[in-house]
């Protein structure tokens, strides 16, 4: 983990509530897709944890949904403004476990961390299939990014306005995959747990105090003992999760 002052070089609206922000600064602490950053927002006491969409040597890109006061203020940040950010938090996904044909399943604002994963899997010669679940057409984001990364990309919408009508699990049924990675809301996780075959990883969300393992605010019980979502997670292995 590193702390630094980062420069906002882009902060653009993707949908009515979802934004993409590119921050410039030290990214050396990012070691795996699925990690997150923790941003200070003026007027808010606690930082805001946001998962990493992608990163390179000098920039880190995050995609976030406006859900409250903090993210609303973030959405108003102008290009060139500065932000105090902790970078490289959490464990991230284990790319090495993917097998040749991994399945990536994202629901809503759980989708962004899967992009960095997808890119790295493709770079290693794997053939990922991606299922992106949304409620309706105008909430869709990131589809082009996954297509450009070279992944077979399936869209599901609850209202059937685009792609397969229904939930991500409706798209999973006839797929053949070696391993799965998922991030999204709990009801989606429960449905995936019933549907999915073989090994996989789930990236969890929890209300955090510090984001780096100090406060024990985001603890959960697993088959391998108590874990902190922020430090020992957010990614947990399928076999250790207590549902």
């Amino acid at each position, binding site marked *: 983990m590193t702390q630094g002052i980062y420069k906002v070089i882009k902060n653009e609206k993707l949908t009515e509530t979802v934004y993409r922000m590119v921050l410039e600064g030290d990214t050396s602490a990012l070691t795996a897709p699925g990690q997150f950053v923790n941003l200070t927002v003026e007027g808010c*006491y606690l*930082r805001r944890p946001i998962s990493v969409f992608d990163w390179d040597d000098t920039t880190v890109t995050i995609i976030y949904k406006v859900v409250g006061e903090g993210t609303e203020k973030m959405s108003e940040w102008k290009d060139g403004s500065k932000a105090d950010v902790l970078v490289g938090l959490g464990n991230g996904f284990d790319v090495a476990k993917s097998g040749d044909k991994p399945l990536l399943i994202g629901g809503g604002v759980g989708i962004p961390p899967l992009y960095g994963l997808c890119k790295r899997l493709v770079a290693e010669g794997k053939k990922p299939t991606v299922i992106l679940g949304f409620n309706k057409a105008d909430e869709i984001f990131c589809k082009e990014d996954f297509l450009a990364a070279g992944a077979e990309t399936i869209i599901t919408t609850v209202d059937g306005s685009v792609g397969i009508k229904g939930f991500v699990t409706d798209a999973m049924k006839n797929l053949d995959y070696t391993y799965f990675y998922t991030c999204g809301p709990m009801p989606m996780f429960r449905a995936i747990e019933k549907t999915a075959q073989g090994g996989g990883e789930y990236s969890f969300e929890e209300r955090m105090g510090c984001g780096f393992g100090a406060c024990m605010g985001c603890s959960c019980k697993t088959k391998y003992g108590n874990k902190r979502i922020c430090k020992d997670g957010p990614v947990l292995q399928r076999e250790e999760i207590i549902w």
Partner: protein
Amino acid sequence: MVNTKVDLCGIELDNPVIPASGTFGFGYEFAELYDINCLGTFSFKGTTLESRFGNPTPRIAECTSGMINSVGLQNPGVHGVIEHELPELKKVFGKKVMANVGGFTVDEYIECCTLLDKVDLIGWFEINISCPNVHAGGVNFGTDAKNAADVISAVRKVVSKPVIAKLTPNVTDITEIAVACEEAGADAISLINTLLGMRIDLKTRKPVIANKMGGFSGPAIMPVALRAVYQVYDKVKVPVIGMGGVSSAKDVIEMMLAGATAVEVGAANLVNPFACRDIINDLPATMEKYNISNLSEIIGGAH
């Protein structure tokens, strides 16, 4: 050249800055971020006889200039602390550490402290009789002068190291509890633990915290903490450790002027993991700015 040293119950601290229990784990994870030997000492994660998971999540809520936590004394239990946590800490910390101990019965405090008293790394006991997040059988030792005194005198009898009583502000008169603890043998008093508070989510119309209420901390509570330290300093002869919202070198000096010999920093560590290091680095210049050459000389200076 300014002097930041203070004496806490016969042990000299390089400076009065002490990360508060529950905001610094067992130290070694912060040692990955900076050399924690710059600290005066730190108070480790509240330890109980048995391991505890703590309360259900969500355990955290945000407030204006502060936060609420309802962790509920999650810890690996005293045996786990002695066998795993303290050996890890010893690799990175060359000073005496403060052992923060919680309990549900007097016997539990006695057993836990007896085991920890044998650990050389430990310099002091900070007896937590003030956690707002656990209520075993309705007992809250820190809100009743006699119960508080019973715990402190029982621990005082079985340990060789200084005993610090950590008090709750959630009482009518904190000085009454402080005096009872001093009379029971406390070598110092630390205050304040968190204030009982809550938040309600307007969308769900339910409390944000799973346990409904939790401990409110952060800069918003500093005036309350400062007042309590000021009051207690007037009533006891033993050293007072001040805490509650301290986030800067100026806050440390303010707390010391109120009567604190040493100052604990809590919530600030969770927002800025380098908070204590930064405060310690800022202390000399801040002292010079306010014409302080020897920090220990300002203790209680506002009285």
